[in-house]
């Protein structure tokens, strides 16, 4: 293993930490009822989105699920806009109408935030189709959990993308559970990457607790996709450290299993490696933590200062016509 470029390594660490610390604060805010609805945390899985999105260009597109705070942040959505969204205020990236599960930010290529499992895949295929038709060298990265693999929309989308050679990168975040359902209880074939063979799509598994491994795989895949190599598929093997959502009593898995996975916390792994390679010391780490903390603080302050949309505008954005706030 050759040493990581120190600056880049620290950058990756900071990116993951931004996601982690933001979400830890979200969890607190949830218990204070500042954030409501469903809240799905990405804690433990940060290396997956970080490694992939690091390889994307600003104009590239991301389609994600309800567990997408990290994806939006890493793609460029300001943390302020994300927190404001969870507060349900006008300054949120979706104007307070979407909430935690529906972060949108077209300026940064963030196309949701789709809370129907599997529902984002056809949309990602369509974005890629538009790019192909328009001759744009854009890549659409579509994130989804391994639970989505059982859905018909997964299957149909995989086939369309492969049949039409579309520039999509399918990123399956295999964290072994769909809510309480372990992979082996939902798939007759548990080797997710192998499923891509049924569509003649290049696919391979990646240790997604190792952000560097993810980045390496993503680099290869993104390049291939961008250069007309058709859709690619990454199985990002990861683990969710926390409950599925804030309501989940986690009856379906062992504490010991969680403990074992926590030993491979992607942030700890990278921190250790950087320290081992002499690229990070206590002061460096403290600097990162401090920057991140102040970004989180600022985001919370921003959200706290947000303004609710006037109730009179309830009917806005149902259709595009300037309806003056009325309901069509």
């Amino acid at each position: 293993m050759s040493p990581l470029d120190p600056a880049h390594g620290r950058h990756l660490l900071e990116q993951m930490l931004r996601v982690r610390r933001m979400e830890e604060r979200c969890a607190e805010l949830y218990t204070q009822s500042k954030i409501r609805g469903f809240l799905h945390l990405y804690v433990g899985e940060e290396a997956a989105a970080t490694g992939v999105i690091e390889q994307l260009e600003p104009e590239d597109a991301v389609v994600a699920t309800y567990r997408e705070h990290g994806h939006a942040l890493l793609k460029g959505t300001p943390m302020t806009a994300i927190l404001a969204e969870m507060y349900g205020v006008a300054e949120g990236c979706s104007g307070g109408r979407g909430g935690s599960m529906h972060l949108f930010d077209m300026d940064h290529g963030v196309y949701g935030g789709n809370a129907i499992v599997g529902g984002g895949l056809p949309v990602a295929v369509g974005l890629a189709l538009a790019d192909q038709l328009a001759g744009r060298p854009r890549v659409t990265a579509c994130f989804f959990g391994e639970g989505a693999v059982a859905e018909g929309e997964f299957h149909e989308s995989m086939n369309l993308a492969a049949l039409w050679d579309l520039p999509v990168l399918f990123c399956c975040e295999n964290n072994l559970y769909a809510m309480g359902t372990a992979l082996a209880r939902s798939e007759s074939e548990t080797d997710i990457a192998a499923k891509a063979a049924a569509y003649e799509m290049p696919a391979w598994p990646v240790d997604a607790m190792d952000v560097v491994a993810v980045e390496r795989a993503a680099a290869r895949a993104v390049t291939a996709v961008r250069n007309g190599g058709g859709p690619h598929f990454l199985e990002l093997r990861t683990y969710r450290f926390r409950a599925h959502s804030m309501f989940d009593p986690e009856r379906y898995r062992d504490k010991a299993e969680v403990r074992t996975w926590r030993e491979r916390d992607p942030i700890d792994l990278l921190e250790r490696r950087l320290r081992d390679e002499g690229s990070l010391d206590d002061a460096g780490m403290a600097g990162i933590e401090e920057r991140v903390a102040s970004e989180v603080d600022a985001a919370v302050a921003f959200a706290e200062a947000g303004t609710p949309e006037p109730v009179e505008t309830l009917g806005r954005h149902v259709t595009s016509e300037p309806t003056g706030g009325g309901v069509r």
Partner: protein
Amino acid sequence: MSTTTYREAMRDALAAALRDDDRVFLMGEDVGAYGGCFGVSLGLFEEFGPERIRDTPLSEAAFVGAGIGAALGGMRPIVEIMTVNFSLLALDQIMNNAATLLHMSGGQCNVPIVIRMTTGAGRQLAAQHSHSLEGWYAHIPGLRIVTPATVDDARWMLQTALDDPDPVLLFEHGALYGAEGELTDDLGPVDLDRAAVRRSGTDVSLITYGGTLPTVLAAAEELAGRGIDAEVVDLRTLRPLDDEAILGSVARTHRAVVVDEGWRSGSISAEISARITEGVFYELDAPVGRVCSAEVPMPYARHLEIAALPSVDGILQAVEELGLRG
């Protein structure tokens, strides 16, 4: 009589059905090991095992279709869909098969399936988890649509639904799960063809069902304070509608407001309004009023969500618009 929650009442109903009839099984996403997305089936996995409390992959079309096939094969499946929005993935199976097989086969293929799902808003789950589509489903011939609103109905409707030789869709409003109420022991199967008058009154008929029943009862209380005596009709079943109960009530009160959480245009309220007009036009002292949800995909922000939903104030205003001032 004892006090219990809607959630527990529903769970008791499931457990009783599973105990009574070997052909009954429960199938759906996370009904087993997880204990049910909203905790309804908690503990059943332990009692009845993974064959009868069957966790499914995320495959709404296939497991609803499998329920239909199992019903054709002589079982009595109860299929749970976590949230009404996800049922759209299974609509082909629901409309093109469950609702249609009996007719298409010339009466051979009964489909005695019960499909349960959570419906409704109020928990800030936004536009892909919050809709109220039960009234919309009531458009489909061949289905029975039931909407338990009380603890007793949560406990006692399921068995009638299971006894029905045809497909029944049972909608549980998410906001009701935690609601407490009096449970009548041994009430026995509910007559699903009959609406229930939850409050008698003479001045106006407030017609509703499911999640909005508590709101309507609160509005009726408020009206009582203003000297207006409202009758509250809980439809219970949206297909078929109990015309006799609806028209009977309106014929007595001469005024009606229909309250439901569906979007207004094309809502079940429209159907009820049309039927009232058709049935007792010359008894009406005022046009039938409707209080529905605003026609928006449900927004996340709390104040917007509240504004989108039927409210006591909205009902009071609708009653006022009938010319009733107490």
